C-alpha cells in the first residue's frame, strides 16, 4: 500500500478514534441504529437544530456549546444562566445550512446531537459530517410518541442517565394521563380542532403532520384532512374553514389571536363565535409547536385542560410550575405564570 493511502487510512482512523482527551471510549447505538463511538465524559455538546437545543438544554445545559438561534430577551426570562447566555452557533449541514463545518471543528465539541427525523437523508448527513470532521454525531428520534425512550437514550448518551430517567418518567406519566382522560371522554365530546398558523390563520397542518400531532394525541379531531399526502403544512381558505366548522381553534400567532374577532367572515366560524380561540403559550418555546420537541409535553396538559375542562381535572398553574421547574430549571412567580397563561385565555 503506498504512502498516501496509508496516511489517509491513518487519518481516518485517527479522526474517528484517537481523541486527545479520551481516557476510555464507549459505543452507543443511536435511534437510527448507528453505532457511534463516544468519549466517556461528554463536556461539550453541539446541537444540530432547534429541537436538539431543547433536548440538550433540559438534560445537560452545562455541556451546551451554543444555541441554534439566539434566544430573545423575552425567551431568556424563562431560561437559566449560564446556558441562556450562550452564543449562537447556527444550524448544521442539511437542515438549511447556516453553519460551516470548520466552525464545528473549531468549537471542539465532544458530540453533535440531532433530535428529529431519522430518515435516510439525516442518517447519511450524520455519517458524512462524522467522517469529515471526526466528531461523533448521534441521531435521536424526535417523534412525539418516542419521547420517553428518546429521553432515556439521550440521558445515557450525555452521561445524565438519572436525569434522563426522571424526565422520561414525567413524559410517561403525562402520556398515561392523556390516555386516561381520553378514555373518560366519549367520542362525541372530543372537539374538532383547527390549527391556525400565520397572521392570517390560513396556514394549517393536515392530519398526521408534525405540527398537529400533539393535538391529535389528546383526542382532538383535526378538521384539516386531505390537504397533502402525509399531512403537512398546507393552506386553507376561510370558506373551507367555515365548511369544517371547528369547535376549537388553536393558534400560535398572537396577532391573529388579537384580531380574529374583527376579521371579516371569521365570525361565521363556530369556534370564533363561541369564544373558543386559544393562543398557545410560547415562552421560552412554543407549547404546541415551534420547535417540535420536549416543549410540547406541557402543551399536552394545557390542551387537556382546554379541551376537557371538567374531565381532565388539571390544575394548569401547578402543572406549569412543576414542568418549568423540572425541565427548564426555572421557578415561575405568579406574575410570570399569568403572563404565560394569560395570553392563552379564550377569545
Amino acid at each position, binding site marked *: 500500500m503506498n*504512502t*498516501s493511502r*496509508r*496516511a*489517509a487510512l*491513518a*487519518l481516518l482512523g*485517527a*479522526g474517528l478514534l*484517537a481523541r486527545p482527551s479520551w481516557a476510555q471510549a464507549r459505543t452507543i447505538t443511536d435511534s437510527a441504529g448507528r453505532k457511534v463511538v463516544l468519549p466517556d465524559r461528554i463536556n461539550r455538546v453541539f446541537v444540530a*437544530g432547534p429541537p436538539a437545543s431543547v433536548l440538550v438544554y433540559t438534560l445537560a445545559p452545562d455541556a451546551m456549546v451554543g444555541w441554534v438561534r439566539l434566544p430573545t430577551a423575552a425567551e431568556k426570562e424563562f431560561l437559566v444562566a449560564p446556558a441562556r447566555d450562550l452564543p*449562537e452557533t*447556527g*444550524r448544521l*449541514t*442539511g*437542515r*438549511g*445550512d*447556516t*453553519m*460551516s*463545518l*470548520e*466552525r464545528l*471543528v*473549531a468549537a*471542539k465539541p465532544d458530540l453533535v446531537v440531532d433530535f*428529529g*427525523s431519522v*430518515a*435516510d*437523508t*439525516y*442518517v*447519511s*448527513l450524520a455519517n*458524512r*459530517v462524522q*467522517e*469529515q*470532521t*471526526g466528531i461523533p454525531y448521534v441521531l435521536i428520534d424526535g417523534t412525539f410518541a418516542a419521547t420517553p425512550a428518546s429521553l432515556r437514550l439521550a440521558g445515557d448518551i450525555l452521561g445524565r442517565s438519572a436525569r434522563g430517567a426522571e424526565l422520561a418518567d414525567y413524559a410517561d406519566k403525562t402520556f398515561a394521563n392523556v390516555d386516561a382522560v381520553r378514555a373518560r371522554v366519549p367520542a362525541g365530546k372530543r372537539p374538532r380542532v383547527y390549527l391556525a398558523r400565520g397572521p392570517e390563520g390560513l396556514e394549517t397542518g393536515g392530519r398526521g403532520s*408534525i*405540527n398537529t400531532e400533539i393535538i391529535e394525541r389528546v383526542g382532538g379531531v383535526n378538521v384539516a384532512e386531505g390537504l*397533502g*399526502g402525509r399531512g*403537512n*403544512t*398546507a393552506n386553507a381558505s376561510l370558506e373551507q374553514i367555515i365548511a369544517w366548522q371547528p369547535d376549537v381553534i388553536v393558534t400560535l400567532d398572537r396577532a391573529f389571536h388579537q384580531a380574529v374577532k374583527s376579521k371579516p367572515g371569521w365570525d361565521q366560524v363556530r369556534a370564533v363565535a363561541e369564544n373558543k380561540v386559544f393562543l398557545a403559550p410560547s415562552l421560552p418555546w412554543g407549547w404546541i409547536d415551534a*420547535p*417540535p420537541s420536549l416543549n410540547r409535553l406541557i402543551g399536552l396538559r394545557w390542551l387537556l385542560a382546554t379541551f376537557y375542562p371538567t374531565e381532565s381535572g388539571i390544575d394548569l398553574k401547578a402543572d406549569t410550575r412543576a414542568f418549568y421547574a423540572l425541565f427548564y430549571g426555572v421557578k415561575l412567580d405568579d406574575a410570570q405564570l399569568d403572563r404565560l397563561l394569560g395570553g392563552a385565555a379564550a377569545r
Partner: protein
Amino acid sequence: MPSSIDSSVVRPRADARRSAVVIGGLLVILLLAVLLAAMLGPYPLTPGEVIAAIARRVIGAAQPGPVDTVLFQIRLPRVAAALLVGAALAAAGASYQTLFRNPLVSPDILGVSAGAGFGAVLGILLSLPVFAIQGLGFVTGMITVGIVYTLARALRSQNEILVLVLAGIVVGALAGAGISLVKILADPYNQLPAITFWLLGSLSGIKVSDVQVVAPLVILGLVPLGLLRWRIGVLSLGDDEARALGVNVRFVRGVVITSATLITATAVSVSGVIGWIGLVIPHMARLLVGPRYDRVLPAAALMGAGFLVLIDTVARTAARIEIPLGLLTALFGAPVFVWLLARGRRMWS
C-alpha cells in the same frame, strides 16, 4: 491560384502568443486564489500551518489532528469543488453562447438546472441519503435535456436552434412547476429549509468523495469541448455556412449539448443552482481574449474556476452563517451584466 506571401508578414504565433499570455496569467491568478482560499476559513489557521500541513502530506508524513481534518477533509475538498463547478458552469455557458449564436444565453437554456433541481429536491422529499439526492439530480438533469433534444429533433424544423430553445423553455418550466409542487409537499421543519438552501446553491457539505466523483465527470465533459474547439467556433456562423465550410453540424452540436449538459448536471447536482457564472464569465473572457471559441473556452473555464473559489471563500468567511452561493453570484453578476449591456453591443466581442 493566390500568390504566395512573404512569410515574415505572417505572425500566427503573435496572436496565439497573446492569448497564451492571457491564459497563463489567468492560471497564475487561479493558483493564487486557491492558495488564498486554503488560508482563509472560520477555523483559524495561519498560512504557516497550511503550508506545513500540505508539505507534510506531500512527503507522506501527514499528522492527524484538527489542522489536517479542517484542511483536507473540509476546506480543500470544498475549494476543489468550487474550481470544478466554476469551470464547468463557465465552460458550459461559453459553449451554449457559441452554439446558439447568442451571447445572452446561460447553461440553463435547455433546462438542465431546473431538471437537476427537480430531481434533487425530490430526493430530499423522499428522505434519500445524500449521494442518492445528488445522483437523482444528475440523472434528472441529463434526462431533461435528453427530452428537450429529442423533442426538438422530432419537430424537425428548419430552424433547429429556435426549436431547441423553445423546447428548453417549456420543459424547464415543467421542471420548475415540479419543484414548486415538491416544496408544497415537503415537511416544513426539516425538508423545506433544506430544499430552499439547496436551490440557492452551496458547497458547504462537500467532502472528498464528492470531489472524486465530480472531477472525472467534469473532465470527461470538458475534453470533447476542448478537442472540437475550432469546429464549435465555426458553428457560430450559422448552420448553412458551417456545413459549407465542412463541419458536420449535427454531430458537433450533439457533442456540445451532451458535454455541456454533462458538466452542468454534475455541477448542479453537487452544488445546487448557482446562476450568473455561466452567463457573465464567458462575456468577461471574451473581453480578454476575443470571441473565438478556441480561446474563450480555456479562458472562461479558468476565470469561472477562480471566480467561484473567491466567491465561495467569501460565502464561508464573510459572516457567521453560510451565505448561499447563488445569492453572492447574483449580487456580483447582475450589476456586471447590466454594465456589459450598457457598454453596448460591441462589448459582446
